[in-house]
């Protein structure tokens, strides 16, 4: 079943669809598809509207292979309103890939990334530049990880518009590890939505989800994160943590953690905090002469920076920290 047919079958996203609980679904324009679907891959298992959209719109696939044992740093530019990127990362390869945003204004953007990570490969996928001028942006990732592979997925979302990142990860091989870090710095009517599903399909696989939100104005963030641990998967570790600082009265956050665990010998945690800036920290800084406004900026930047601190030193980390410093 091709993507167009499958899309028509599942229909437009609705609030009562659990993948879209917190999303302002009324803002999604009804698609006008091209005559025929160029990609004839069978998408009958795909459940997320945003994952199908670029394919149904005949996004030209861009394939990139990184050879076994290779080491590569690259930029992935999204130049079209609909994009489909296929990445194959070979065994033992090391890659650092930055996704750059579309500079051309479009009413809606939808991108899909299919990423296969070979045994013991290590990849950092990240994006951090503001996507202004796109009122609605979908970004979907399908990540399949083989044994011993490590994926670091880091993002900083800022700028105007409605954005949704969906990610389906399949930790297929023993010892695979996925770390997702998401920083959302939002203001006015910005809204950012995450729908993450991580499937632990092998023993000793590990996943970390860490999101931090700094919400000002009337902005809104949501985080819907599911972890599924299969029946044969012992010694799995997974954690999910969402920390939010509400900088205004009208900002809001929604968090929905889902754990489906079919094995006893696992360690899975989730946590969610929401508050304002720490008043004792604010007092400390101002009591040393720092004006309140500056002190608040220092504290929000510190909160943001902490998210990326555990990452190993790399050009990617440096880039992320630079963006935080410029906030």
């Amino acid at each position, binding site marked *: 079943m091709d993507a167009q047919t499958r899309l028509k079958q599942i229909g437009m996203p609705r609030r009562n669809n659990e993948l879209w609980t917190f999303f302002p679904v009324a803002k999604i324009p009804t698609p006008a598809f091209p005559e025929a679907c160029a990609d004839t891959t069978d998408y009958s298992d795909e459940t997320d509207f945003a994952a199908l959209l670029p394919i149904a719109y005949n996004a030209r696939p861009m394939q990139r292979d990184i050879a076994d044992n290779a080491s590569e740093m690259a930029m992935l530019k999204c130049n079209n309103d609909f994009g489909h990127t296929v990445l194959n990362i070979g065994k033992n390869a090391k890659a650092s890939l930055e996704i750059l945003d579309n500079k051309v204004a479009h009413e809606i953007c939808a991108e899909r990334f299919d990423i296969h990570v070979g045994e013991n490969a290590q990849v950092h996928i990240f994006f951090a530049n503001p996507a202004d001028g796109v009122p609605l942006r979908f970004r979907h990732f399908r990540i399949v990880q083989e044994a011993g592979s490590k994926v670091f997925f880091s993002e900083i979302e800022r700028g105007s518009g409605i954005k949704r990142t969906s990610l389906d990860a399949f930790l297929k091989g023993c010892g695979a590890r996925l770390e997702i870090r998401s920083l959302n710095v939002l203001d006015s009517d910005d809204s950012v939505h995450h729908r993450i599903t991580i499937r632990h399909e092998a023993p000793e696989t590990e996943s970390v989800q860490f999101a931090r939100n700094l919400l000002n104005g009337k902005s809104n963030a949501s985080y819907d994160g599911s972890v599924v641990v299969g029946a044969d998967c012992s010694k799995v570790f997974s954690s999910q943590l969402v920390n939010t600082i509400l900088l205004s009265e009208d900002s809001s956050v929604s968090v929905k953690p889902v754990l489906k665990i079919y094995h006893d010998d696992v360690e899975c945690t989730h946590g969610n905090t929401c508050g304002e800036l720490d008043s004792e920290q604010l*007092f*400390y800084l*101002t*009591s*040393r*002469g720092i004006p*309140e406004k500056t002190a608040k900026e220092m504290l929000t930047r*510190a909160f943001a920076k902490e998210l990326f601190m555990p990452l190993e030193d790399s050009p990617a980390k440096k880039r992320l920290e630079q963006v935080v410093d410029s906030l």
Partner: protein
Amino acid sequence: MLSIKDLKASIEDGTQILKGINLEVKAGEVHAIMGPNGSGKSTLSKVIAGHPAYHVDGGSVTLDGKDLLQMEINERANSGLFISTQYPTEIPGVNNVEFLKMALNSKRVFLEQPEIDDAEFKKLIDEKMALLEMDERYRDRGVNEGYSGGEKKRNEILQMAILDPKVSLLDETDSGLDIDALRIVAGGINHIMGPDKAVILVTHYQRLLDYVKPDFVHVLRHGKIILSGGPELALELEEKGYDWIEEN
């Protein structure tokens, strides 16, 4: 220099903690405030600094004639007040050195002086860290982040040395310090102290006062200063305890 008159302050639920504090501190003087646990010593310093948990019910606090209670928290500091709280706050993610530079430059901007340049600041901080025998680890870490109790206290005195305040109120700076650290920190306080400055030490023990010699010792109890005297008072209290005062 610092003049506190009939200062009354309460916490959110209306309970009054400070019930009329009077204290005159002149330039060149060292004062010590002692008193039983829960008597209001820490509250006094936080109220003077402008901590939002307290409400001033009455009285006045002036520094060189200027009304501190009308000022924002940062303005009080920039006017020459330095408060070291009993439990310095940890601020992960804010680098200690960058924080110090920001604090110093805030003061300079407030006093309409140019900001310090990098080389001059480095010289200043190197000198003060050497004075307090602080190791390099202090530079890279977040403000008080993961510091031991004693390390935090030493970091407070580093801030005092950099900001060079007129009046410093140090709340139990001696607690948590090992024997050598106490000597070093006391040396730092003496170094910063001068004829145009004043220091108020809140302490439970005589040992800090062996190094930083007070001119006056005050006893605070139930939110009031109930007795003031010379340095000998601290020794007497150490020997006889606080109940002795009320019995007499």
